[in-house]
């Protein structure tokens, strides 16, 4: 049995609104399947689960706002999932606004052995068990010890699914049922650290008083995983089709030539963006950027890169390709940025708690601006390992879904370095603001024909100004310079990208 909890979709998120469930009780789910839509200050995100199993209980009603780490659902990871988890679906009181209508019919149709009707309301898990009550329907077989424990803990045995022989409720079942209810005790610093290190607090065993999770536990978990920074999920084909994914896919297909790297909005109709959302996003960006400028001593470097070789190569490549597979200049620029980060790892990772923590792989955050204002930075996981066509495809997909508000949780978290590009915006240089806790941000301006010295003569070449904003706590100018020269060198050999 595993808990599915409200994930932290960014260092600045501490609560989320459960917008809708994409699964129902009893559905088979696989690791990586999107099972819920969570609305953050920034966007509606499809959130994946990390286990294979069956949806046992949904604990939170859509429309409920809960803190990060709150249990949203129970995924039964056991062998034989019960087809109808019946009374086990009685929601546990985790959220104040939770309603329990979903189980009303089931419970009220179950008279107990005395012929009395149980109360019309579903029994909350913590309702004291009346002493001497006969076992409710189906005569749940319960030993005296278990009954005693359940009474002590005010647990309604009807709400427990037995795992013992013949569905008996065992002592372990009672302990497990009561153990999952109290919310995880986490110190404020540990919670903050978990956000920064992308550690899923539900997976951390606390060593503090009464099992409180402390910073030391989060650090240990960060070293050993698992974190909420998963590998890219399985191909969507493996996931059961969900109604909410369809519009996203359709939107994707409907865009003939998405240009993900430009900052103008895509033509796909975005999900309705209310004033609230816009304002909330503005607020979130404001908080993050203010924090960045307050905490991070930025230093800036720039260099001008001759793109003649790269664009010639791109032109040749594109001529041999179907239109849909053509590459935009963004692809080699991003790929070079990722490879350079692999070669200069001092800029690829996080500044947390007074020291630099190198990234586990190169995960490029790509700034995508939205119609109606605002900005999202979906993540190209393992960008340094993707071939150019794969990177282009991933980029298109992410940008479209970012603008339609259908990004998945893992696609918004875990970036180790962010790239912002104003290639299509007609400005030459962008000096960016670092996305904490990352330590650097790479910027590209517009590619324009500029006069320059070529072999001792004046030539005209397509040039781009590449900039680096870096955290002076984590690196010095020499490291930044190495990064930009590496980037330049890589872009002179586009065939190797």
């Amino acid at each position, binding site marked *: 049995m595993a808990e599915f909890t409200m994930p932290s979709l960014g260092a600045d998120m501490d609560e989320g609104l459960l917008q809708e469930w994409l699964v129902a009780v009893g559905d088979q789910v696989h690791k990586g399947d999107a099972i819920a839509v969570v609305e953050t200050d920034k966007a509606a995100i499809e959130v994946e689960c990390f286990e294979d199993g069956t949806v046992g209980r949904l604990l939170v009603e859509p429309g409920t706002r809960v803190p990060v780490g709150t249990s949203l659902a129970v995924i039964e990871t056991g062998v034989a999932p019960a087809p109808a988890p019946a009374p086990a679906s009685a929601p546990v009181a985790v959220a104040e606004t939770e309603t329990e209508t979903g189980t009303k019919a089931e419970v009220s149709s179950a008279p107990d052995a005395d012929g009395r009707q149980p109360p019309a309301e579903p029994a909350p898990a913590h309702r004291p068990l009346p002493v001497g009550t006969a076992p409710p329907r189906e005569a749940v077989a319960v030993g005296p010890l278990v009954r005693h424990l359940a009474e002590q803990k005010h647990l309604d045995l009807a709400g427990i699914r037995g795992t013992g022989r013949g569905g008996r409720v065992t002592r372990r079942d009672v302990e497990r049922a009561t153990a999952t209810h109290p919310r995880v005790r986490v*110190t*404020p*610093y*540990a*919670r*903050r650290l978990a956000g920064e290190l992308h550690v899923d607090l539900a997976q*951390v*065993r606390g*060593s*503090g*008083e009464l099992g409180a999770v*402390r*910073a*030391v*536990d989060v*650090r*240990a*978990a960060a070293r*050993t995983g698992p974190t909420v920074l998963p590998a890219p999920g399985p191909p969507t084909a493996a996931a059961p089709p969900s109604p909410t994914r369809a519009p996203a896919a359709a939107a994707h297909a409907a865009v003939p030539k998405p240009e993900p790297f430009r900052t103008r909005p895509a033509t796909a109709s975005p999900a309705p963006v209310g004033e609230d959302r816009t304002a909330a996003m503005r607020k979130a960006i404001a908080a993050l950027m203010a924090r960045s400028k307050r905490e991070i001593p930025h230093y800036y470097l720039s260099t001008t890169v001759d793109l003649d070789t790269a664009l010639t190569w791109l032109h040749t490549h594109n001529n041999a390709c179907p239109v849909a597979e053509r590459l935009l200049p963004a692809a080699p620029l991003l790929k070079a940025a990722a490879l350079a980060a692999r070669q200069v790892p001092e800029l690829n990772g996080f500044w947390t*708690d*007074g*020291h630099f*923590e190198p990234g586990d792989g190169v995960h490029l955050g790509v700034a995508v601006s939205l119609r109606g204002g605002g900005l999202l930075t979906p993540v190209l996981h393992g960008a340094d390992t993707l071939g150019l066509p794969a990177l282009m495809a991933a980029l298109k997909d992410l940008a479209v879904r970012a603008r339609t508000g259908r990004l998945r949780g893992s696609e918004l978290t875990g970036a180790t370095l962010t790239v912002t590009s104003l290639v299509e915006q007609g400005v030459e240089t962008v000096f960016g603001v670092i996305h904490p806790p990352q330590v650097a941000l790479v910027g590209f301006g517009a590619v324009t024909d500029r006069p320059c010295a070529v072999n001792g003569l004046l030539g005209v070449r397509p040039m781009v100004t590449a900039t680096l904003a870096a955290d002076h706590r984590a690196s010095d100018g020499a490291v930044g310079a190495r990064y930009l020269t590496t980037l330049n060198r890589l872009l002179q050999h586009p065939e190797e990208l």
Partner: protein
Amino acid sequence: MTAEGSAKHETEHSTEYGTEHKTTYREALREALRDALRADDRVFLMGEDVGRYGGCFGVSLGLLEEFGPERIRDTPLSESAFVGAGIGAALAGMRPIVEIMTVNFSLLALDQILNNAATLLHMSGGQLPVPLVIRMTTGAGRQLAAQHSHSLEGWYAHIPGIRVLAPATIEDARHMLAAALADPDPVLIFEHGALYNASGELHPDARIPDLDRAVVRRAGTDITLITYGGSLPKTLAAAEELAVAGVSAEVVDLRTLRPLDDTTVMESVARTHRAVVVDEAWRSGSLAAEVSARITEQAFYDLDAPVERVCSAEVPIPYARQLEEAALPGTAGIVAAARRVAGPTWSAADGGRSPSDGDGRVS
């Protein structure tokens, strides 16, 4: 107290002009008074028994002979009267230093301090500053029982319009007075009775302190122990014991109880993520409560454990030695609280890493 005072008189004379650097808290206070009286003709000392007797705790011994009865003035036993006279002298352009024998007697002058000294500048639209310095003895630990063992500096730290100082070291005893006299507002200096005999080296380069800053008396990485005044030596001793147990404690001496230096405290908590406040006053409504609240307000997201307080038991301080010791914060109690807050030194999940790299730092 008379017996205690006269016993001290004899030892005082022999050590007063001893080696240049080795000195006591009491001598450092006296040197500070001497400096102030020499530096500024407007400065004078006034209080019960400060002249012919040399001060109830021997601080002003010898000053009457040196500066004369005009500037070292014995007063009648009326705190309200002589604190009021001090306020009047300050208004008239003098720089009075008023000694109140112990903090419990200061309650007789509370009206003068709270309603006159602290308010006149504000009531007069800025026309009437009160540059008055009031010194008094505070604290328990000397078997003086329930009427002479209070730590009421936290009460005074509640009052806007005055500054409250608690010199805990010989350097601060030597140099805080000059800074207090330079302050245009009333300044209360609380000298813990248990510190007078503390001896040590006085660093010749020690400068007049910045009264707006708390100081880190000992650097550490695992927990911050925040204290002031008479509890500083106990807290430093606790930090020493904790170091043996593998817990690296940072000790912050507040020095100025009003206005509190939040910055130093929060910077320390941001480094260590844990805090214990040590305060000899009673726990309820104490300065320790104020410091703890500020940490929660300003450094909540840095906290890796609840803030704890080590304070006196909430009883009138007992006379019997064992009972008094049991009522006051002690080194063992501070160590125990710090260990509770620091938690297990390494977690099971950590695979038994050594305590030193198990927390606070990642290589």
